[in-house]
């Protein structure tokens, strides 16, 4: 399974870890994973094992942010590799989420 969900507890951020390619093929599973959480839940997206992402991944992060409450602190992105980080930077994802 390319998406791994870790929920620490009520009110705590839910971590979605994406392995391999983060693209359209992953989007269904990704959506199912976040839609299972109540609206307004904060999320952490762990990209440590993400090798590739395309525009649908960026769109997915946008949809996740809407689901998570549409605030800058709603979604935090962690462990992005330099290549992945460059794509996040060019799409100015930092305007939407915190990138650590």
């Amino acid at each position, binding site marked *: 399974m390319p998406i791994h969900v870790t929920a620490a507890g009520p009110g705590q951020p839910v971590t979605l870890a994406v392995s391999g390619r983060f693209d359209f093929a992953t*989007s269904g599973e990704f959506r199912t994973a976040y839609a299972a959480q109540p609206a307004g839940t904060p999320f952490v997206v762990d990209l440590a094992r993400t090798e590739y992402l395309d525009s*649908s991944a*960026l*769109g*997915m992060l*946008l*949809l996740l942010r809407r689901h998570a409450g549409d605030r800058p602190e709603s979604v935090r992105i962690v462990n992005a590799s330099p290549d992945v980080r460059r*794509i996040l930077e*060019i*799409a100015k994802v930092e305007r939407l989420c915190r990138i650590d």
Partner: protein
Amino acid sequence: MDTVLLDPTAPPTPPAPLAPLELRERIQGELAEQFDAFRRDVAQIRALLDDAVLKLNDGFVGLARQTDAQRALLDAMLVRMARTDQGSGATLGLKQFADETGRVLGRFVDHLVLTSANSMDIHQRIEEMARQMDDVDRRVAGVKKVADQTRMLALNAAIEAARAGEAGVGFAVVAQEVKRLAGESAEISEGIRESVGGARAQLASSREVAQVLASTDMSFALDAKAQVDEMFAEVERQNLYLTERIGEAEAVTHEIEGKVQLSITALQFEDIARQLLTHLDGRLEAMAEYAAAVVDLHARAHLVTAREATPERRARALGSIARRYRAQSERLHPVEQTVVEQQSLDVGDVELF
């Protein structure tokens, strides 16, 4: 034929001595000629000096004006470059082009991400519609089943009506009608099933379109960004290069200005030279007077020696000549006192920077 031979051993016949007054006239004439030549030379030097200084002065003043203009041009270039740096210049420079390209790229990527999100949203809704189509299929299958059962029911009713004979004739008509309605119902169900199949095919292709719309490889944006960055770096390099060269040109201009100032100061030699020439004029006049007087006194001394009979009268006359000679000599000396004080040209310290 008589030949007159000159005796080579005989001493040359000396020319007849000139009388002292004739000699005086001749020497004074020579001297006057020489002093006139001196005066002409001095006048020529003065004229040359005037002309050269005038031209040099014009040249240096012009040079100073040109370096001012050059400096203004260089300053204007620097100001313009600084303005281009802030991107507010009127012309579309390379820097602004890179800026604009970067902005367009940013807007395009924003739009792309939004399109992806919306396409996935549409994709999700299509999936939901496909699930509802499955429901429709199931319900239609139920309707078909009911129609089949109704048809069986009508068949049974027709058999029962036949058994009843004359009394079942009306009931047989009803059973026939029920069978027809069951058939129609089955046909409508089949029609719905076919329509749902068509809609499902449409949904499948819409889903593919949504997937294509949602999925764009981002490497094009990375490449474009790299090109824009390279363009910025090139602009920086160009600006740095131009700024440095303009700075060097300004330094050279400054140096030229310094040299021009130095040259203009050096032209003050003209004043000193002019004073020296005036002094030379005075000295010339004094010497001319002195020489004429000395020649005159010398001639008088000759005449006195030849004419005065007694030693006492001779001595008195010579004494008077000697006094006049001394007086003449003293008139030369005041000229010596007026030597120009400034002997060398001190240009002083010229501010270079």
